[in-house]
């Protein structure tokens, strides 16, 4: 997979290049400042962009703004945003233009190499990956949100894992239930959220996650 990286810390940038190239990916470009991101993406048209949120010159949310601009300008480009901290607002902004090929993870997760590579694959394949921390923030704040009240605790757990971009088999492993049970829970979630079956199951998963995020489900 061809990847463009934006990260201002040289050590971490080199570490990521090493990690990705030793796992069969090619790093097309690695940039260290916000304004360099979009030109690099336009030039290389990579399969995936991995962007740090806080970058020079202003050390604010350059990376996130670049990610949002990239999603408008290159809608098919999957973007994974990495950050030292997560804000659910940022997740909502990233998902505002649809949940296809979006990831938002804490930088800490890079250390779990296998899971990190899996997340890269998911995002590059058009999936959605949200950091468990974002999901926890959402869960703790959105408990009173209307559609969530209808879900059983188990269904909530399943949805939470779906929001993290996990596939059915991974969910069944984590919750120690059969895949059939997972599918049943997911069908219940779709029903309770009134999600029409015609969209295809991947699309419906995204819609469920968006509903979960408090978004209008007509969007995307």
């Amino acid at each position, binding site marked *: 997979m061809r990847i463009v990286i934006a990260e201002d810390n040289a050590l971490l940038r080199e570490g990521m290049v090493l990690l990705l190239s030793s796992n069969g990916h090619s790093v097309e470009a690695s940039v260290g400042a916000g304004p360099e991101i979009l030109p690099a993406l336009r030039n290389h048209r990579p399969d995936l962009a991995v962007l740090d949120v806080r970058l020079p010159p202003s050390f*604010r949310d350059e990376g996130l703004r670049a990610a949002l601009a990239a999603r408008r300008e290159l809608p098919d480009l999957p973007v994974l945003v990495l950050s030292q*901290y997560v*804000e659910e*607002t940022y997740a909502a902004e990233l998902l505002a233009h649809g949940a296809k090929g979006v990831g938002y993870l804490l930088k800490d997760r890079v*250390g779990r190499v296998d899971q990190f590579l899996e997340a890269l694959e998911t995002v590059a394949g058009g999936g959605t990956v949200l950091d468990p921390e974002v999901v926890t923030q959402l869960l703790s704040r959105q408990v*009173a949100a209307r559609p969530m009240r209808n879900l059983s605790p188990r269904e909530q757990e399943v949805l939470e894992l779906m929001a993290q971009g996990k596939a059915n088999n991974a969910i069944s492993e984590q919750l120690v239930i059969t895949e059939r049970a997972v599918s049943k829970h997911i069908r219940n979630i779709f029903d309770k959220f009134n999600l029409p079956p015609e969209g295809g199951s991947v699309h419906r998963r995204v819609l469920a996650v968006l509903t979960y995020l408090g978004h209008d489900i007509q969007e995307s």
Partner: protein
Amino acid sequence: MPEFEPQPDTEEDTSRLGAAVRDARDASAFLYMGLPMAVVCFFGCFVVPASLFFTVFLIGAPAWPEVVRALRRLAGHERVRAGAFLGTTVPEQYLPLDGSLSDRFRLAMTDPGTWRDALWLPVQTLSVMLLSLLTLLLWLVGLPLDGVRLGVADAVARRRGVPSRAEPLVLNLQRFLAERQASWTVNLLRPSESSRLAERVAELSESRAGAVEAHSAELRRIERDLHDGVQAQLVALSLRIGLAKQQLAKDPEATRARLDEAQEGIERVLADLRHVVRTVYPPVLTDRGLAGAVRALAAGSSIPVDLQVSVVESGHRLPASVEAAAYFVIAEGLTNIRKHSRATKSSVRFQRSDGQLTITVTDDGRGGADEHAGSGLVGIRRRVAALDGTATLTSPVGGPTELKVELPCGS
């Protein structure tokens, strides 16, 4: 019996004279009652300079604050009496004589009230004694003079058939003199502009000392979090990795276990560090400013929040410490509303005026919030106090609840 029949004119006149006499009596009573005080003040005129004199040679230093204290009591007594006579209240304002002997000495010397009181001593002595004497004379002269004057004027008026317009002259002077004396006292003993300023300086020094103390406590907390938490954990992790290296050749399985532990530990350190950073200055403030950060808080709230943040969006940015405190106040306020209030809507308002930022967080919930029940508000108070601000919580049972925080923000 005609001689006993009431004669309206005469009675009016005698009552006018009577009123004048009663008035003059009250006025001179005020002066005569001041005589004992004048005698005390007379001695005070010698005691105060004498104690100051001895103080210069240091032997009298311990006595000086006590003398000033006694002087204040004396002045306080007269302040009330003269104020009551004039129908006003005279505020009393002194620097409190607390602390060590040198502190008390310094306060007694620097309080402008001390010197005004000292000046008042001879004024009181002389004015009361002289005016008392004068009023005594006025009685002797005034009673027959005004009596005759009024009597003649009334007789003339009666003959002409018009009401008398004559007023007692000499007797009214008594009141005039007494009021003069009382107003000298009041003007001398009223707190001067400089003593009000001195009071304000003392207040500000105290609140600044509190703010510095609260700020130091905050620094110590951060240091403790980093030192006992993060640093200690990193040492433990380094040790784990060292062990792993040692075991690498002979026991790969154990090496793997140590490395797993090390990685888990690092993730915990990162989470702790993130928490510490967040308590110091939430990163979202850097990214989005206070208005953006508060919008993010509101977006995450399950209860609708009505936001009025325009005053913190326009104009120059607030100091970072004020932004951080404001952010925590609102985050805590919204959390409490979500957890306890059963509200259906809430609001966050910013106002900015006279170098003061006012944050008001309200909800339409059930009220009855107890600030001692949770530690959240205690933390808010600590943060707000560190910036010399104030926090007030009003929450009657049945609602609504209002949390109002005022922070000085320079402009």
